[in-house]
C-alpha cells in the first residue's frame, strides 16, 4: 500500500495527532476526541486515510494508542446502546401496553354504557393518541440504538485494522 508523503489536515490525521498528544501527556478535551472518532469511524474515506497515516507514521506505538482510543469509544458506544435498549424495553414497551390497555378499557366502558357521549369519545381519542405517541417515541429510541450499534461495530473493526496496519509497518511490508 502506497502512502502519500504529506497528509492533509482531516479528521483521520487529527485523531492521530490527538493520540500522540495524549501519549505525550498533553490533555485533549474528551468531547472533541469522541466527536473526531465518531466522524472517522463512520466515513469510508477517513478510515482509509487513518490506516494510511498509521502505516506512514514513524512511531511504532502510534497505532497502539489510536487503537486503544477506538476501543474505548466502542465500549462507550456499547454502554449507550445497552442503556437505550433498557429504556426501550422497560419504559417504551410498557408505555405502549399501558396506552393500548387504556384504549381497550375506553372501548369497553363505551360499549357497556358506563361512559357515554363526548366523554367516551374524548377518552378513546386520548388513549389512541397516547398509543401513537408511545409507538413513535419507541421508533425514535430504537433508531438511536441502531446508530450506536453501528458506531460500536465500526470502531471495533477499525481498531483491529489499525493494529494490523501498525504490524505491517513494523515488518516493513
Amino acid at each position: 500500500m502506497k502512502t502519500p508523503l504529506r497528509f492533509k489536515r482531516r479528521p483521520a490525521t487529527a485523531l492521530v495527532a490527538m493520540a500522540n498528544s495524549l501519549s505525550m501527556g498533553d490533555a485533549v478535551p474528551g468531547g472533541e476526541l469522541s466527536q473526531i472518532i465518531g466522524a472517522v469511524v463512520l466515513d469510508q474515506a477517513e478510515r482509509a486515510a487513518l490506516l494510511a497515516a498509521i502505516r506512514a507514521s514513524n512511531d511504532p506505538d502510534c497505532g497502539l494508542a489510536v487503537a486503544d482510543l477506538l476501543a474505548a469509544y466502542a465500549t462507550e458506544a456499547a454502554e449507550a446502546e445497552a442503556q437505550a435498549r433498557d429504556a426501550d424495553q422497560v419504559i417504551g414497551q410498557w408505555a405502549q401496553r399501558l396506552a393500548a390497555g387504556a384504549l381497550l378499557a375506553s372501548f369497553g366502558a363505551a360499549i357497556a354504557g358506563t361512559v357515554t357521549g363526548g366523554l367516551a369519545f374524548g377518552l378513546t381519542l386520548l388513549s389512541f393518541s397516547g398509543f401513537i405517541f408511545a409507538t413513535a417515541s419507541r421508533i425514535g429510541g430504537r433508531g438511536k440504538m441502531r446508530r450506536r450499534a453501528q458506531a460500536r461495530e465500526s470502531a471495533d473493526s477499525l481498531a483491529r485494522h489499525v493494529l494490523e496496519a501498525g504490524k505491517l509497518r513494523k515488518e516493513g511490508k
Partner: protein
Amino acid sequence: MIWKFQQSSPILAVQPEKRMFEAMGLETVIVSTIIGACALSFGASAYLFMRARPAPAAKDLDKIVKNAPYHRLHNVLKVEAGS
C-alpha cells in the same frame, strides 16, 4: 325496592353518610383510571423522546480538525500546514 337495590350495591348508592371511596361513581373511577394510564404513557413517551434526541455537538468539526495538536506529529507523520 329502591332502598334494597342501593343497599346491595354500595358503589351505585350515592349517599352523603357513606365514605369517600364508596360514594365515587363507576364512571368517575373508570374515567380517572383511563386518564391516569394515558398520562403515565404520555410521560414515559416524552421521556423516551428526550433521550433519543441527539446530543448537541460540543464544537464544529472543522474547527476541531483545524486546531488539533499537529505540532506533536513533527517527527511521526508529515501533515500539511494548511487545511
